[in-house]
Every structure is written in C-alpha cells, then in structure tokens.
C-alpha cells in the first residue's frame, strides 16, 4: 500500500519535474505566425471581421478562433494564402465570395462634408469642403467604413463592375446523366 502510494507519487513528481523543465526549454514566446499572418492581411483595419483591426484578426486566426475566410476585403485570394500559411486545407469553392464591393457616391446628394474622406483607411475618397466627393475605384478596398459617416446617405456599396479584363470563365457545370446499368 505504502509502496504503491510512494511509487506513484515519485513517478508523478519525476514526470512533472521533467515536463516543467521541458516547458521552460520549449516555451513558445509570442506566436511568430501572428506577425506573418498580419503581413498577409490588407491592413486597412476596416473592422468588417468583427475583430479589433487586422492585427486582432491575425491573432484570432493564429490561435484558431477565427477561420481563414474571416476577411471580406481579402476575399478568396487571402483565404487561400492564409490556408497555405497555416497548412490547412479549406474548400474555397464553398466560400460565397459575395463579389467584391466598392463604395460609390451619389453625386446629386453629396453635400461635400468631408466626413467620409477622413474615415477612409486607404485615402480612396477625394474631396474638399463644399465640393462633390469621388471614390477612386482602384484604391477602394470596400471596407464600408464611410457608409455610416455620410449624413445624407449619399454613400453606398456597389458591386465592382465586371469588365473584359476581369471576366473569368465560369467553372464547367457537370450535369452528368446517371449511368444506365440496364
């Protein structure tokens, strides 16, 4: 009885001590991947993912509490890059890329208040006080931060128009007839 108690205690103590030393030796400081993931993110800190900025989202992705498809502006491309970084496989065809959207200004309603200009993380909106503002399409990441800032609801998100240069052949739909065994 005593021998059993003693031997188990001893065993536990030795293993615990060993693991303690190992934990010290193999301690992982901050997750090195967070910085790498953050480098892949758009960096506009738009907040569409629900995390505090891109760094927050990167940390969440690294520890696994957020999926790689969390970033709407990044879209499929980013999800694929993140999955490759993390070494996980995801089915991107299921990701409903709702189509990228960019901001557009209804010029007849714009009063030139400059609020959206100050909000834009990529300086994609140009305008001066009392002048009609405009969105530079190439620079807009579609974060949507400007929408709520507009006092006259002149800002809205519009799908990016498909042009000849951006058109992609759709994936072939396999409508295969069931083989007839008879």
């Amino acid at each position, binding site marked *: 009885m005593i021998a059993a108690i003693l031997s*188990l205690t001893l065993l536990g103590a030795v293993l615990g001590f060993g*693991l303690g030393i190992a934990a010290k030796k*193999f301690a992982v400081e901050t997750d090195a991947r967070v910085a790498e993931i953050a480098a892949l993110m758009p960096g506009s800190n738009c907040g569409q993912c629900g995390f505090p900025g891109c760094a927050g989202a990167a940390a969440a992705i690294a520890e696994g509490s957020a999926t790689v498809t969390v970033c709407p502006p990044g879209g499929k491309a980013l999800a694929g890059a993140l999955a490759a970084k*993390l070494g996980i496989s995801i089915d991107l065809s299921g990701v409903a890329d709702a189509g990228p959207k960019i901001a557009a200004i209804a010029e007849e309603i714009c009063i030139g208040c400059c609020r959206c200009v100050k909000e834009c993380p990529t300086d994609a909106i140009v305008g001066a006080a009392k002048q009609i503002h405009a969105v530079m399409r190439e620079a807009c990441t579609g974060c949507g931060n400007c929408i709520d800032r507009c006092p006259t609801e002149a800002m809205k998100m519009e799908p990016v128009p498909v042009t000849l240069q951006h058109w992609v052949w759709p994936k072939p739909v396999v409508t295969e007839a069931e083989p007839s065994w008879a």
Partner: protein
Amino acid sequence: MSEYLILLVTTALVNNVVLVKFLGLCPFMGVSKSVDSALGMGMATTFVITLACGATWMLENWLLVPLGLGYLRILTFILVIAAVVQFVEMVVKKASPELYQALGIYLPLITTNCAVLGLALINVQEKSGFVKSLLYGFGSAVGFTLVLLIFAGLRERLALARVPASFAGAPISFVLAGLLSLAFMGFAGLNFK
C-alpha cells in the same frame, strides 16, 4: 541480428498494428487527409511509441515487478505515455507551428491512441527484453507510419474521384481501409525460414 531484422519486418508488415491488429484506428482515419500531416503524425507517434516502450519496460521491470504492483500497470503506463505526449506536443509546437496546427486535436490524442498502450502491454505480456521491446515498439510504429502514409496518399486520390453521394466522405474511406487491410493480410504468408 537476423532475429531483430525479422522482428522489424514482422511488426511493420506482417503484424501491422493498424491493418492487422486494428489498433490506433482513430488517427488512421483522422489524420490521413493529406500526406504531409500524415507524415508528421507518423513521426510523432513513432517517437512516442518507441520512447513509451522503453520507459514502460523500465517501469515494469524495475518498479512494478520488484514491488509486486502489477495492478498499477495500466495506470502508471498511461501516466508515462501522457507525459511523453505532452513533451512531444511542446516540441512540435516549438519546432513546427504549421504541423501543430495541422495535427490539431490528434496530437494530444496520441495519449489515447490504443496502439501505444497496446504495444506496451503486449511487451509485458511477451516478457521481452529491453532491446526487443524497443524494436518491437519501433517496428510497429514504422508500420503505423507506413500505413498512414499509404492511406493518406490513397485518400488524396480519392478526393479527386467522383464517389456516389451515399458513399462520399467517411464510408468510402472505410471501404478503402478494408481493402488495404486485405492487402496487408497478404503479408501473413511471408516465410522467413
């Protein structure tokens, strides 16, 4: 010497731990989606099994038998195995965060991989010596890795095949595992004499 060689081949192929003894099926089905993670899992398990076989031999012959504590065998063995797995987890997390992420829950679950405890117990049953215990564990672990790799490769091809809806996913994988098992049964005819 040739005895040890035969032991290795026998444990790896003829008495394959997964496909003939049906031990360790959990990671076999769980971590066999890609060859890369299968290889990582195989190596981690090999390390754990070999180390555990050595440690449990010492435990058995130096502690449990002299003190007559045979009834504590499973308890102490699990304790040692869990400690080794924890150690492996730390090393993998440090050395390869990608592999750590890819293995996910299956890494700590090596503790409950019945192949590990099973091999340790078989060693005790067979009253093997230390070197033989180690080789037995190592050979079986190599067999486990080999089968895991083969199965992962097959499943990578399987992912491209169009499987009838009712068979898609796990069912076809089990069918495949069964066929692979049949193939490994073929090694039973190997004759070393």
